[in-house]
């Protein structure tokens, strides 16, 4: 159960990072100033990158923990 919770927590954090990154990207796309590109890459890109990596890590860590299988099963119930 605890493992399932931690995976959910990672998914949430990953989702929040991706959302913030995407919102930064959307702002940069409508903000027609030269610095917009740098903000898009450095801030938006970093947030999205970290979010995606955290999502991938949550997948890997979930499959590495056999206990998670029971966590998922409990979730199913």
């Amino acid at each position, binding site marked *: 159960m605890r493992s399932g919770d931690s995976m959910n927590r990672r998914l949430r954090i990953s989702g929040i990072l991706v959302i913030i990154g*995407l919102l930064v990207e959307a702002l940069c796309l409508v903000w*027609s100033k030269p610095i917009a590109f740098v903000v898009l890459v450095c801030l938006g890109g970093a947030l*999205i990158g970290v979010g995606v990596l955290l999502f991938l890590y949550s997948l890997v860590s979930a499959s590495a923990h056999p206990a998670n299988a029971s966590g998922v099963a409990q979730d199913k119930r």
Partner: protein
Amino acid sequence: MPTIAIVILVLFSAVLAGVMVVRPAITVSRAGKILAFGVLFFLPLFSLVAGMENEMQRSESTAFCLSCHIMEPYGKSLHIDDPAYLAGAHYQNHRVPADEACYTCHTDYAMFGTFKAKLGGLRHLYIYYLGKPPLPENIKLYNPFNNRECLHCHLGARSFEQGATHNADPSTLPAIKANTLSCVSSGCHDVVHNVGHWGDKVKFWDVGS
């Protein structure tokens, strides 16, 4: 892809990611796992690449270069109503694409020319925000203007190959082609932007007239 389409895609991706944040438990099912992969991996990366590509395209536009106020006089020089002004004559007569005028002349037509131009742009950005930007009239090219950039379009053109001035001396044309005699050297096409040296007599072309 137009900017508005990318913005819609980005916002759509953000909304779907929001669903994952609110209900992470949907990843329990097989369909939920596939959705999570799409929403938290594929869509964000695709949106990021599309957004970067869009910004790269926009960085080639004349409007983008002129959005730094230090470049305003250079933008104004494109509207000088005098054919002796090389930049203005090229811009007004569409010898260069009007919406990519700066990029067309100031990018090396060589391997990695675009890449170098982008790096140069980042350097400009650094100087603009964190350094001490020079006055517009004191801006100089990093390297002397290479004839290769002019010859990219003019080489083989009748006006260039058979021009009276270019052929007055038999050594002139080969020297231009070998880049040993600059197109913008004194006495030739030396009036380019001439920012800071316009005087009072210079007139501007009214686009609407």
